[in-house]
């Protein structure tokens, strides 16, 4: 009896059932497709130079954009966003080299990020490098 049983066992084929593999794989694909979100973000690029603040860092010739709340000042003259872009375009910052590309960006405490972003975008679009000006600690 025991002999017969062992003989039967020897002949039994040990196949792995792979019939449902494709179903499992397609289910996984559907999961990935449903769970994936394709993110596309729109950005402006700005290379912000880092460095210590020195009195020599700011020269009279360096163009300055100052944001005072909703107001924009370019070299201490009030301008609107369109005018700022026109003034920056005149400077041909994309063709300039080194420190001539630098535009100082200064802002007062009540300036919202939206205005700051617009100024950053205008400077970057014209090929300028933004130097952030910190307010003096009093």
């Amino acid at each position: 009896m025991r002999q017969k049983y062992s003989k039967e066992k020897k002949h039994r084929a040990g196949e792995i059932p792979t019939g449902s593999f494709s179903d499992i794989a397609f289910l996984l694909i559907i999961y990935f497709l449903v769970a994936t979100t394709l993110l596309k973000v729109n950005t402006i690029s700005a290379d912000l130079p880092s460095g210590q603040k020195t009195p020599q860092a700011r020269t009279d010739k360096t163009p300055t954009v100052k944001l005072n709340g909703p107001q924009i000042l370019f070299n201490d003259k009030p301008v609107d966003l369109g005018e700022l872009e026109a003034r920056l375009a005149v400077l041909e910052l994309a063709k300039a080299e080194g420190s001539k590309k630098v535009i100082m960006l200064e802002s007062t405490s009540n300036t919202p990020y939206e205005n700051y972003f617009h100024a950053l975008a205008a400077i970057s679009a014209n090929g300028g490098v933004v130097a952030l000006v910190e307010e003096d600690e009093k």
Partner: protein
Amino acid sequence: MSRKAQRNKRRKVSVPIASMGDIAFLLIIFFLVCSEVSKEKQNLKAKMPVSEHVDELEKTVAARVSIDQDGLIYLDGHLVENAKDVEWGVKALLANTVSDEQRHVLFKCDAQLPKEIFEPVLQAVAEAGGILQAVGTLPEN
């Protein structure tokens, strides 16, 4: 003639599905290799500023900094206390970079936040050596 037509009717057409599993697993491997797990803060409560100068970002970013409408700062989805934490975190993430292409830092901030909150973070990104990629939206036409 009619016999032949009958024979044709009986012919069974089987679709070869033996390689379907292999194709499916290849597709899974493709998805796994190509997809990137998002490190951004999910459901950020912030309204992005609108500008016509924004372009679609095609570069890979090394770090993601977000500030929500409550002024809470997140670095790669984790809440941090202040701008100094952002500076150290971004510095650490940029430590092994070898080119400018690897220094892009994604920056999201609510449009109405005041300067006191966002400017120290921008300074921190600059100090850490990151190239700012400030997120905005295109105006709706």
